């Protein structure tokens, strides 16, 4: 119950016009400016005596506060002056003066020893050779898109699959390079020379750069007493990469919810569930990194929608955000809007329809911005229009480099949003749920010889013909590996 938090170390790397410096953030407040009174003293008249403030907000929390009227981009996104940000590993802040003639990059790294880092400056044309992407220019603007489907390129901390415009402050991260676009040139750091350990940063920090893998190894989930045990789920060994939205399919009573509960830790199963080598239990207890919307209602009905979401935010969001009332309220309003609950903010939860209650449940977990998001039938009672909005939100969560796993009884509704499918079928010989398929949705259709997910579920539910056991055997024979059939 009384735990001692291990303090994280953090560094701020300052890059300005070829010059490079490193600052360790070990105090609550460090002022960045050009004055000799500044804690972080930078050259340049344009910087001013007080440019920004960084510091440690808690044992494991760090923040950035802009206090000048300069232009600021954070991970490629333009932000207002006086912005306050809770810093995450590899956050990149570009600051420019009003005339766009001077600039400064602040690159935040977390939980590492101070590293030797060399930043190189190249032109855009040289950057084009370095980055594994197709480039083209149109109307004096540059556009990029990944060369291959398998290329995991993060632009502004999001995986891109389509053509994306490069603009000032855009950050790019590939397997070997991490860089930022400034006026006329590209600053980058070659990652290949760094140790692999550097990428084993805290989940929630690195995953946005495509390094997170959820490793699921369920040997057995049993129920019953010591004398009468029954196995209800067994032998599921798969890896899910960050940035994926995964559908969990299966016949009635196959073990879909049991599987999800076992992954989250709601139900104990033998085996291990890890994310980047870290047990999920650890992530759940220490990082608030998991969101779970179960089948049953988990919000108290004797309260209003707004209050329920507000309390969920107070429990889940970091203190740095809660101390900024504007940001805190913005997040709440954004969540209400995304879930189509803005008009119901003052309504009692008990007076809502079933679908609306479900959306409140999703919102209460969504507000925490979880790294891993699990949903058990979140679309029950939700109309198609609202379901579409919710699916888009879930897709955008996945696109931020997180993992979304969902059980639904209307899988064909959001068919375009899923990357992969897990099919759990009841092996009638062994009377327990097993993995019948894991892979892309296209491969799922060809594996099951069906054209839609609902047809797949129908064939699995057919009790007259034991297709379930046959598919389990078929998948086991293929032995496609932990990443499934792709």
């Amino acid at each position: 119950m009384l735990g001692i938090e291990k303090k994280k170390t953090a560094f701020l790397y300052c890059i300005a016009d070829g010059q490079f410096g490193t600052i360790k953030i070990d105090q609550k407040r460090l002022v960045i400016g050009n004055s000799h009174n500044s804690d972080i003293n930078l050259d340049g008249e344009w910087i001013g005596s007080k440019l920004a403030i960084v510091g440690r907000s808690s044992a494991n929390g760090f923040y950035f506060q802009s206090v000048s009227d300069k232009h600021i981009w954070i991970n490629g996104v333009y932000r207002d002056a006086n912005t306050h940000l809770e810093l995450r590993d590899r956050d990149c802040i570009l600051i420019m003066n009003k005339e766009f003639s001077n600039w400064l990059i602040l690159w935040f790294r977390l939980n590492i020893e101070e590293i030797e880092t060399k930043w190189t400056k190249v032109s855009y044309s040289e950057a084009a050779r370095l980055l594994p992407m197709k480039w083209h220019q149109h109307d004096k603007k540059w556009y990029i898109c990944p060369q291959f489907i398998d290329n995991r390129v993060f632009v502004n901390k999001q995986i891109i699959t389509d053509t994306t415009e490069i603009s000032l402050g855009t950050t790019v991260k590939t397997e070997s390079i991490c860089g930022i676009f400034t006026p006329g040139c590209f600053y980058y750091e070659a990652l290949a020379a760094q140790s692999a350990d550097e990428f084993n940063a805290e989940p929630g920090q690195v995953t946005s750069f495509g390094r997170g893998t959820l490793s699921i190894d369920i040997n057995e989930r049993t129920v019953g007493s010591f004398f009468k045990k029954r196995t209800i789920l067994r032998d599921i060994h798969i890896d899910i990469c960050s940035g994926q939205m995964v559908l969990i399919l299966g016949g009635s009573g196959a073990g879909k919810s049991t599987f999800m509960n076992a992954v989250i830790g709601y139900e104990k199963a033998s085996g291990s569930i890890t994310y980047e080598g870290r047990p999920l239990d650890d992530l759940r207890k220490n990082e608030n990194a998991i969101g779970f919307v179960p089948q049953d209602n988990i919000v108290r009905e004797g309260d209003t929608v707004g209050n329920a979401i507000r309390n969920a935010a107070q429990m889940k969001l970091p203190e740095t955000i809660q101390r900024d009332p504007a940001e805190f309220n913005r997040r709440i309003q954004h969540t209400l809007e995304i879930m189509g609950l803005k008009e119901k903010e003052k309504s009692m939860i008990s007076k809502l329809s079933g679908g609306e209650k479900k959306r409140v449940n999703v919102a209460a977990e969504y507000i925490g911005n979880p790294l891993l998001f699990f949903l058990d039938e979140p679309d029950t009672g939700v109309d198609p229009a609202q379901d579409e909005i919710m699916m888009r939100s879930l897709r955008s969560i996945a696109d931020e480099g997180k993992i979304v796993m969902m059980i639904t009884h209307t899988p064909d509704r959001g068919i375009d949003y899923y990357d992969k499918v897990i099919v759990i079928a009841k092996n009638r010989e062994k009377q327990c749920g097993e993995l019948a398929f894991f892979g892309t949705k296209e491969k799922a259709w060809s594996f099951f010889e069906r054209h839609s997910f609902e047809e797949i579920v129908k064939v699995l539910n057919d009790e007259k013909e034991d297709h379930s056991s046959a598919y389990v055997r078929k998948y086991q024979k293929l032995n496609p590996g932990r990443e499934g059939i792709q």
Partner: protein
Amino acid sequence: MNRASWIRQLGIYTWKSFRQLFYEKKWTVLISTLVIDLLLLLVLNRDKMFVEYMDTRTGLFAIACACIWIGLFNSVQSICRERETVKHEHMMSNLSLSAYICARLVYEAVICFFEAILTGSVMLLYFNEAVHNSIFAPFDLFISLWMLIFAADSCGILISSISKTPEMAMTIMPFVLIVQLIMSGFIFELKGITKAVSMITISKWGMRTLCVCCKINQYPPEEIKSYEYGIYHQNIAEYSTGGARIFFLWFVLLLFVTIFSALSVLALQFVDKDKR
């Protein structure tokens, strides 16, 4: 560790409980308290209570039982009804179970306070100055009633923490009530192990508190005239008002609250093991 602090969680859940008080109209529990108090008045003898010893003692026992009933009913279903939500919040939002229980206690303390005001006021209005005579009147009566209802309330919280469903809580509650009645030391003369058990009943200490508060020893004892009484004679030592005895009895009732609360937190630790 990314979690709201203990104090913050206490604040969140306390305010949540008070909001529910109004949104779900839980304040109607005060109406049931009033009904119970009025029912009591139907059976209490206005002419003899606070005049003769046995009638006073019997009446105070009835009031003590009513307070225990009120307290238990306040909270016996409060936690088990939202057990799934508590489990989810404990597992997913790092809810501190001790903060949750303390928030419940703060809320219940306020409810019990108003119930004590109501019950005490009914007693004072009905019996007027005959209630008792002390420097602290009527505050010591209100505090005694408050402590008694609150102690029973915390027992209800414990039952609710142990029970997995409201039905289970309502099944356990009558057994707890029976023990309070028969082990209070009022109906039966207790010896040996039963006497030891009675020392851990709220009813015994609540009864003592009310009797000391109302200075029952000042009333002349009457002879046991018939078998109908069946109650043993007064125990002067138990109800003596010397020194800070009332403060000691309040402390004992507070100790019940503390122990029941701690056990509730321990019981709720098992919430993660609940099965579907």
